[in-house]
């Protein structure tokens, strides 16, 4: 478990959260491995895990009639798959598929949510860490929606 604690403690999202949190998170954590084309999760499934990627790459996809699966973002080493765990109804809105052999740590989101409900200081500290990631992804989506590389209108 020391290994998992070390990984959680060193992750940029959790730096400075203290040994209690690290011990809690590590207690809710497990090593995960996905082969190429294996799914981490599918849309509409319960969002009960947070994945910290250590190696490999994951594609976030939406299935569109007539086009099949469309990738709208890829995530790699050091990044987080799964922000939906924070907000009800805690369901994934997209599919996540490993593009290549991918390894990481999965944190039990329900365990973290329960802890945040009890300890609001911890909840606020976690929110402050996850919100910037959410905002960065929102900004990136805005740029993608502008379709800046498309033909001039």
């Amino acid at each position, binding site marked *: 478990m020391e290994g998992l604690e070390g990984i959680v403690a060193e992750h940029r999202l959790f730096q400075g959260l203290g040994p209690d949190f690290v011990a809690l998170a590590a207690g809710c954590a497990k090593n995960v491995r996905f082969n190429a084309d294996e799914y981490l999760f599918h849309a509409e499934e319960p969002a009960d895990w947070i994945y910290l990627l250590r190696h490999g790459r994951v*594609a*976030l*996809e939406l299935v569109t009639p007539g*086009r*099949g*699966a*469309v*990738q*709208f*973002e*890829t995530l*790699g080493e050091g990044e987080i798959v799964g922000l939906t765990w924070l907000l009800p109804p805690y369901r994934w809105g997209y599919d996540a*598929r490993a*593009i*290549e052999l991918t390894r990481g740590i999965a944190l039990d989101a329900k365990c973290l949510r329960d802890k945040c409900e009890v300890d609001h200081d911890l909840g606020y500290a976690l929110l402050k860490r996850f919100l910037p990631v959410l905002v960065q992804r929102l*900004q*990136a989506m805005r*740029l*993608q929606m*502008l*379709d*800046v*590389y*498309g*033909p*001039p209108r």
Partner: protein
Amino acid sequence: MDRLADFAPMVAPDAMLPRVVRVARRTRDLPDTWTLELVPADDMPLPVYLPGQFTMLYVLGVGEIPVSISGDAADPSRIVQTIRAVGKVSEACTHLSVGDTLGLRGPYGTAWPVAEGYARDVVVVAGGLGLAPLRPALYQLLASRPRFGKLVLLYGTRKPDDILFRRQLAGWRRQLDMEIEVTVDHAGADWRGHVGVVTKLIPRLGVDAATAMALVCGPEVMMRFAASALHDIGMAESSIHLSLERNMKCAIGLCGHCQFAGSFVCKDGAVMRYDKVRRLMGLKEI
């Protein structure tokens, strides 16, 4: 101020006179984008140009447009230009056949300051067709590769089918002289590369940001965000160079169509330093 000489023109008297050139080769890069290789239609050598400069191409009887040079400045035998069909003149350019003639003025504008990158890491950030004006700089960087530190090209485009100069990028990647990362805004499930905006690749750059230099070209909103992200990782604003695009007509700073606050993009740009234009780029009036 009563002598005619006092009113001498600020530019050479023939600056508005196109030179006649001939299409020697044409290559379809994308469904709406072609690269033309232009050679002289007479015995005179072609004008010398620097990476980052542009010419005015005149399709006889149709009109004139500014077009970035996308070829190797070290090859004086031809001027290579990549054109996307978006209007009447650009569309006419893409319909020219080998042997057809057209008018050419220039080259005009400022150049990518490639030599400023000596002994420094160099980051090239291209978006969409913005890779074309950066290709001359890439040729120059690769021709003097040992003089530079780490060389990274980040290229973002709409979808995998829209990747410009695809074969050349693959060739450069195989040479291992340059780190190349390509990202697309969206892709099918068979795409194995990055998906997401090009700015997302910037925080992961393994360069010495404090001393590195960046050359950025693409849609203006992409350049704004890319330059901001480069600055966020520690790059000096004065080390970030952007190629701006405005409605250029005369190309010699007379007509005012391409005015950018106190500058004219045609003669004070198109390549400009980020610290000089940062505050102006988000203003809708400009």
